[in-house]
């Protein structure tokens, strides 16, 4: 084994006052985000699936509702909010589960990495993938599939991005309760499907049984879909839209905080 003597640079490093762990450090957070993106880059198939599947679904939907463009407008706009949530949920829950099972999470938490660095790093990395994904899907829907939106396309993108953030947060959180990839994947029907059924995609929430309507009132995806529908129908930013956006963003932050609480430096 070749052995090199320690260099002057290291001696310098050694003498340096050590940087202590803070909850959030910009350099460590961006390093983490860059690392997550670098991992993705070695996996082009995953990138292709993340970016293209939502587009294919929209094309499919467009021709399923070939004779009723109004229905396509409604469902298409809702789906533009739901796709990023589901994709980011799946990708984040598997990625963090792998981080836990491979021992890299334990290693990182034994290093001066703040929990916030890791969580915000993941959110930044997958958030930027979500921007690309949403831009592609929104552009395709608006310009090629004839999705008729009254409001601004930028507002659609904003909601889509917040939904992606919410998906990342939920994925991070549930990965703490999954012992294997099998379990992590099963959390998707458990956490996402009920919201999908109750969010107003299939029928207006006001038409549901009062109990279900009450449940849908406390589920974040309902507000994601509401927000999309506001943009669909109104030219300007409505008070309801602002409320929806704030609720989705608040839920994302809350769940990210819960996710941070599941990261323990000391484990049994």
């Amino acid at each position, binding site marked *: 084994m070749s052995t090199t003597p320690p260099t002057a640079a290291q001696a310098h*490093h050694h003498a340096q006052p050590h940087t202590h762990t803070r909850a959030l*450090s910009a350099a460590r957070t961006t390093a983490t985000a*860059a690392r997550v993106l670098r991992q993705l880059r070695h*996996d082009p198939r995953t990138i292709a699936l993340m970016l293209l599947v939502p587009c294919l679904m929209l094309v499919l939907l467009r021709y399923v509702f070939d004779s009723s463009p109004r229905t396509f407008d409604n469902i298409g706009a809702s789906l533009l909010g739901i796709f990023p949530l589901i994709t980011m949920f799946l990708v984040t829950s598997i990625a963090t589960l792998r981080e836990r099972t491979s021992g*890299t999470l334990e290693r990182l938490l*034994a290093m001066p990495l703040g929990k916030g660095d890791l969580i915000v790093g993941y959110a930044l990395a997958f958030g930027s993938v979500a921007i690309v994904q949403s831009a592609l899907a929104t552009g395709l829907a608006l310009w090629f599939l004839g999705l008729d939106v009254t409001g601004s396309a930028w507002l659609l993108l904003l909601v889509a991005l917040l939904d992606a953030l919410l998906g990342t947060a939920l994925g991070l959180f549930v990965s703490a309760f999954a012992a294997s990839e099998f379990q992590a994947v099963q959390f998707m029907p458990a956490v996402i499907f009920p919201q999908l059924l109750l969010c107003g995609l299939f029928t207006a929430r006001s038409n549901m049984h009062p109990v279900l309507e009450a449940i849908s009132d406390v589920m974040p995806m309902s507000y994601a879909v509401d927000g999309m529908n506001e943009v669909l129908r109104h030219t300007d930013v409505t008070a309801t839209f602002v409320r929806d956006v704030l609720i989705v963003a608040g839920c994302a932050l809350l769940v990210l905080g819960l996710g941070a609480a599941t990261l323990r430096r000391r484990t049994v």
Partner: protein
Amino acid sequence: MNKSSGVSPHPASGDAVRASDLTVVRGPRTVLRGLGFAVPRGQITGLLGPSGCGKSTLMRAVVGTQAKVSGTLDVLGRPAGHPTLRTRVGYVTQSPSVYDDLTVRQNLDYFAAILDPGRAASGRRRDDVTRAIADVDLTGYTDTLAGNLSGGQRGRVSLAVALLGAPELLVLDEPTVGLDPVLRRDLWNLFHHIAATRGTTLLVSSHVMDEAERCHRLLLMREGEILADDTPDALRTRTGADTVEAAFLHLVDEAVAAGRAKESAR
């Protein structure tokens, strides 16, 4: 097997690790039972014992990743797990903890950025990463994905991560398991080189007794207790055995006999 010099190149100036009444509970089991020991600075201390005797738990306690630790455990003058120790202690888990979907250099670049962050440190980081890769003899694999390396090579990437930033204490959990004899010899030479030239303290666990002869000091463990804390030479002399393995077996027999005597006296 080569015998180590037995004498430290750096005289012990205080202990790197000092434990008293160290107890760890995992679920219903008490894994470590009131241990007391010291790991001298600048030396290689071997932690030996059969699988399941509590070696990994002890190492996790030293690194500060083990929950439910009671008693006293000081590492480099601070309580184990203290935030200031996170850059001063390098830790290698039994199974390699690296990202399989990153190259060797990308793995090290990331961990280096966590240990020594900021753009100003990028030159220093690059040197540090290059040196760590050279230390573990993977210079020819810098741009290979960790997932495409052999098990032994991935283990060495994991070791290289722990060498980043020149830590004062290296805690290595079974670093030579599954390696061929040539690589094992090379790694032990590296450990001795690091201890001798950098003054680093090494705590190395193994369940292969012949590796004990390469350590300056030994902690022999069995069922959550420490049977002996001595140099290999002193152990052999004390027990009249030719090898550390024979000495260990002798001590186990003694402990079992003492346990029986205690029981029958009751």
